[in-house]
C-alpha cells in the first residue's frame, strides 16, 4: 500500500550526454534501460536535483570551476554547442497504488525544457526555468514493480556567447529566455559553462486519493491594534474520480510551544 503524500526522487539517478546515447526515450524506459556496469557505457552517476555541470563535477569529468582559474578549462556552451550540455537523466521508482489512488510526477524546476518518458510514454515539459511541472502518471505506472523514468533536458534556447572582455550578462542573449541571467557572467561571477542546465530543483511523486488539495492560500487581517486577527484560507479541490464525491474538508491551526508541546 502506498501512503498518501510526497516522496522525493533524489537518489539513484544516472545521466548521459544525449549525443552519446543511441536509444530513444521509449526504448530507455521499456526494452533498453541504461546501466552503468558496462565500462563503455556513457551513463554516469547524476546529481538530481542539480545541474549538468554539477553531475560532471561529481564524476571528476571537469575541475571545480570555483577554484582558481579552473573555469577557464571547461568548455563553454557557446563553443561546444547546446547538444554538448543536453543530457539524459534516468532513474527508477516503485509505486504500487491502491484502487482510487492517483499519483503525480512533479518537477519543481528544471532548466530549460524537457521530454519526460515514463514506461514508454512521452510527456513534453514546456520552456521556462522558474515553473513547476506536474504530470498525472496514474494510468501509466506499473502496479507491481519498477517504473522507468527518463528525462531529456535541453539547455536554454539562447545560451549566448561570452565576449573576450567578459561583461555583465555576456552578449545579453540569455535575456531572451526566462532564465537566470547571471549565467553568462557578471562582475561577481564567471560564466557558468552549462548555463545551469539540468533538473535543478526537487523531483517528487505525490500520491493522493480521489480528491487533491491544490494551492491553498493563507491571508491574515487584523483589528483593534492587533488584538483580533482572522486567518483567511482559500483552496482549490480537484476531484479526479469519475463519480461525485462527498468529502469532509478540515482546517486546523496549532501553535508550537516550547519543549515540543503543541497548543490546539
Amino acid at each position, binding site marked *: 500500500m502506498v501512503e498518501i503524500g510526497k516522496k522525493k526522487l533524489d537518489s539513484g539517478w544516472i545521466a548521459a550526454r544525449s549525443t552519446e546515447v543511441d536509444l530513444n526515450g521509449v526504448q530507455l524506459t521499456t526494452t533498453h534501460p541504461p546501466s552503468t556496469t558496462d565500462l563503455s557505457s556513457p551513463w554516469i552517476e547524476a546529481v538530481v536535483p542539480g545541474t549538468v555541470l554539477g553531475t560532471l563535477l561529481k564524476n571528476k569529468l571537469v575541475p571545480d570551476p570555483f577554484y582558481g582559474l579552473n573555469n577557464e578549462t571547461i568548455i563553454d556552451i557557446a563553443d561546444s554547442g547546446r547538444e554538448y550540455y543536453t543530457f539524459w537523466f534516468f532513474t527508477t521508482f516503485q509505486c504500487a497504488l491502491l484502487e482510487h489512488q492517483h499519483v503525480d510526477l512533479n518537477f519543481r524546476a528544471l532548466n530549460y525544457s524537457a521530454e519526460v518518458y515514463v514506461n514508454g510514454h512521452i510527456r513534453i515539459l514546456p520552456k521556462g526555468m522558474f515553473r513547476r511541472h506536474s504530470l498525472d502518471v496514474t494510468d501509466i505506472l506499473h502496479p507491481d514493480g519498477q517504473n522507468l523514468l527518463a528525462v531529456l533536458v535541453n539547455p536554454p534556447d539562447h545560451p549566448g556567447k561570452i565576449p573576450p572582455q567578459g561583461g555583465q550578462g555576456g552578449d545579453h542573449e540569455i535575456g531572451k529566455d*526566462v532564465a537566470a541571467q547571471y549565467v553568462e557572467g557578471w562582475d561577481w561571477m564567471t560564466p557558468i559553462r552549462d548555463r545551469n542546465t539540468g533538473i535543478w530543483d526537487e523531483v517528487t511523486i505525490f500520491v493522493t486519493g480521489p480528491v487533491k488539495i491544490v494551492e491553498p492560500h493563507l491571508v491574515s487581517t487584523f483589528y483593534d491594534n492587533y488584538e483580533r486577527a482572522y486567518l483567511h484560507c482559500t483552496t482549490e479541490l480537484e476531484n479526479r474520480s469519475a463519480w461525485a*464525491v462527498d468529502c469532509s474538508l478540515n482546517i486546523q491551526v496549532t501553535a508550537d510551544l516550547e519543549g515540543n508541546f503543541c497548543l490546539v
Partner: protein
Amino acid sequence: EHLHTQELSIPPGSCIQYTFPPLFFYRPNLWWPNGMGKQSLYTVVITVDVKDYGESDSWSHLFGFRKIESTIDEATGGRLFKVNGEPIFVRGGNWILSDGLLRLSDKRYSTDIKFHADMNLNMIRCWGGGLAERPEFYHYCDIYGLLVWQEFWITGDVDGRGDPISNPNGPLDHDLFLVCAMDTIKLLRNHPSLALWVGGNEQIPPDDINIALKNNLKLHPYFESMGGV
C-alpha cells in the same frame, strides 16, 4: 476556534474553489523580523477525507501573523517599511543564490540564512539576475526572521543596456514570463518572510509584463474593504 470542518460534494472530474470561514484569533503571537521580537509560527494543516475512502490528501504550512507595509518616502525617495505597525530600520543583504552550480541543500540554506541573522540583518534581497528562491530558502527566512525582497528575472544589463544595446523589451516570450511569475507567486506566497515583489533589477519590465504583474499581485478587493488594524 482554530478548527473548522466543512462537508462538500464535488462533481466528477472537476476542480472547485473553496474559501473557509475566517478563523478568529485573539491576540495571536505575531511574527516579527530579526531583532524586533519572536518569529512566532503557527502550523496550518488542511486535510480532505472522502466518504467511503478515508484521507485523500493533506497539506501543511507554517504561517506567521504579520502585516508588512511599505511606501516611497517623498523626501528621500527611499522605501519605508513597517511591520505590524512598527517602523523598521532595514539592514539588508544582497543575495544571488547559494551556489553557482545550484547545489541548494537544506543544510546550506539553513547555515547561510542563520549567518545573515547572526550578522544582525533583517532583510535579504534576491537579485533579479539570479533565482526566484526556493521554499527551503523561505522556510529558513521564516524561522530566522529575515524579510525577503524578491525580484523577478529582469536586469537592465541584459534587458535594455549593455554594449551593444540589448533588447529592451525583456524576454522574447512575455506570456512565458508571466506563466513563470504566476507559478512562482503561488509557490511562495504563504511565507511570512516574503515582504516585497519587485519587477526586476534597476529596471522596469516591459509595460505589458509590468501591468500584468501589478494586477496579479494587488490586494484582493475583499481585503481592501476589510478595514484595517
